[in-house]
């Protein structure tokens, strides 16, 4: 279309400045909330996922079948040597760490608590999970790791234990025997999650002793990959390599989303709510545009009559009105995206904290969900919201087009 007509369209949309501004603002706010929310959710979910990966099981976990459902120490992989070698040689695997977990009682002179003793490999575990970064007192494991224990902040308060304190672990092994060991507190960690009062880290060999497990046995091997997108590839390669072990129910490999099903479900639920919100916002935007453009063309019936009398084709009038509709919605889209980028950039700097909206700490499956997130601008969200609104605008523009195509020039000229 010629610039003359584009200019005419542009001027036409500002005829009723107030009405157009209301519509533009409605679309703008809609677009803003959609884009901002989507960006926020994307970042939040990514953060939750990374949190889960870095504090629990990594991208993939190898274990005995059913271990993640029963959490029973007796569900273990007795001879993981071949698997460990395979993991070490796999180029997609960044790090892996073997673990043994056993339930039991930890006591000090001042108190006791039922906890999970997580037996980890002091050398490899820090490459997989981040607990070592959450040490607030003491250190993760010292040079001589034997007899050392790292406990959570809450647990240390409960037991009145400090770095260097002596604590006693009392457990029941898989064979029914009682395990009893003395440990020295090497470090205290704080994650703000349930782990702070329910988990203590000990060297994996100590855990095997407490649990009466054979020398090589593991409950889990947590695997961290170089790239999150390679989860399926590594999993499939593993399944191919260890097909016989899998068939004989000795071992299974699960991606994080199957281990942490609750978190996966929460993310899916969030996305569904987001889609619902999107539909509502889109309906409001559509109503706004439709109302605005219909009112505008009703007021111009006579003018359309004049246009037709001097040789304007109905098709041309329809395209002009459609362009006007698109212009209104484009102004709203630009406004909305600009606002969204502004908001996201701002919160990307200072962080957006959901705390004031949540009644309590967000803990799912003992994993703390960070309420503060630092969203980043993701153009794909702007683009998809923009496309959807433009498409919707075109659909809405069918109404005025139909009205104009039914217009009779003689009657239009008699209108005022």
């Amino acid at each position, binding site marked *: 279309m010629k610039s*003359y*007509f584009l200019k005419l369209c542009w001027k036409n949309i500002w005829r009723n400045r107030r009405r157009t501004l209301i519509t533009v603002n409605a679309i703008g706010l809609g677009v803003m909330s959609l884009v901002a929310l989507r960006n926020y959710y994307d970042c939040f979910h990514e953060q939750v996922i990374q949190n889960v990966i870095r504090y629990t099981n990594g991208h993939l976990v190898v274990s005995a079948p059913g271990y993640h459902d029963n959490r029973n120490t007796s569900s273990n992989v007795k001879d993981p040597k071949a698997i460990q070698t395979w993991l070490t040689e796999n180029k997609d695997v960044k790090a892996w760490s073997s673990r043994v977990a056993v339930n039991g009682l930890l006591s000090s002179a001042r108190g006791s608590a039922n906890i999970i003793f997580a037996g980890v490999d002091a050398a490899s575990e820090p490459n997989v999970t981040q607990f070592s970064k959450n040490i607030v007192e003491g250190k993760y494991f010292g040079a001589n790791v034997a007899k050392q224990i790292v406990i959570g902040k809450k647990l240390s308060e409960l037991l009145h234990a400090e770095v260097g304190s002596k604590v006693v672990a009392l457990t029941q092994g898989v064979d029914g025997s009682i395990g009893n060991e003395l440990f020295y507190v090497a470090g205290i960690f704080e994650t703000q999650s349930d782990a702070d009062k329910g988990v203590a880290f000990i060297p994996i060999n100590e855990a095997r002793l407490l649990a009466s497990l054979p020398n090589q046995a593991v409950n889990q091997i947590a695997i961290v990959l170089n790239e999150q997108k390679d989860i399926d590839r590594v999993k499939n390669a593993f399944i191919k390599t260890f097909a016989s072990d899998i068939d004989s129910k000795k071992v299974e490999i699960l991606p994080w989303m199957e281990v942490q099903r609750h978190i996966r479900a929460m993310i899916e639920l969030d996305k569904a709510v987001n889609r619902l919100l999107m539909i509502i916002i889109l309906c409001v935007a559509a109503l706004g545009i439709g109302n605005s453009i219909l009112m505008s063309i009703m007021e111009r019936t006579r*003018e359309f009559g004049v246009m037709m009398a001097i*040789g304007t084709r109905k098709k041309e009038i329809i395209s002009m009105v459609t362009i006007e509709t698109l212009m209104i919605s484009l102004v709203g889209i630009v406004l909305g995206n600009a606002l969204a980028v502004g908001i996201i950039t701002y919160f990307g700097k200072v962080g957006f904290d959901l705390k004031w909206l949540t009644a309590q700490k967000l803990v799912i499956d003992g994993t703390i969900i960070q309420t503060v997130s630092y969203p980043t601008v993701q153009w794909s969200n702007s683009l998809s919201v923009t496309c959807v609104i433009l498409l919707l605008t075109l659909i809405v523009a069918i109404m005025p087009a139909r009205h104009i195509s039914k217009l009779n020039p*003689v009657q239009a*000229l008699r209108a005022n």
Partner: protein
Amino acid sequence: MSVLEFKGVDKEYCAESSGLKKVSFRIEQGEFTALAGPSGSGKTTILNLAAGLDFPTRGCVTLIGRDLSSMKREELDYLRRNNLGFIFQAYNLFPVLTAIENVEYPLALQNVPAKERRERAHAALTEVGLTSYASRFPNQLSGGQQQRVAIARAMVSAPKLVFADEPTANLDSKSADKLLDLFSSLNETTKTTFLFSSHDPRVLNSAKRVISLMDGTIKDDYWKPLEKKSNEVSYLDPIRSEPNEADLARIKSAYELI
């Protein structure tokens, strides 16, 4: 060849209203004709049929040698775009465009390039004496000025015919006179065919030919002898082949009404 011909045209809107009955006339290139008649006599209907905006119930309308009822809508649109100018009683102009942008409109429809468009619109505004008002918006112009912009817009694409439906009805007598002078001088210099409708005696006064309507039929169709240019307005001035007292009285009363 006539530029416009009505042959036995009937127009029935509905059972009640008269519309047009057996209307026949023929207008040659360069004529300056007025359609006279009281409100409801069928003037607008004739102009609409002549422009192919509406179609006769019976009979035939021929414009520039083409039978309008045999033409497709698209052809009619282009016929209007390229050959007709149209001026209405009021609200001719796009309120959001300046005077010169309004005048450019028909040229934009014809895809005339921007520079040439501007030049021609400017020339047309000069013709109607509004050069210095080019960048004003319609609401910054008087009624007479708006009508002159409408004339410039109607004339800018050098149409064969210009239709004007009661162009002076909303104007005071001085502006109306000026407008009519403009029309007749444009008619003389450009040889454009003009067809007006009006119940204003001044319009009838400046027309060379008057087709007088009553209840949808032509009551009278006469030529006036060569004009003596006079600023004096008088309803008795037009010399008619057959003076009609009743018609005159109607014209008079209509004039008093406005």
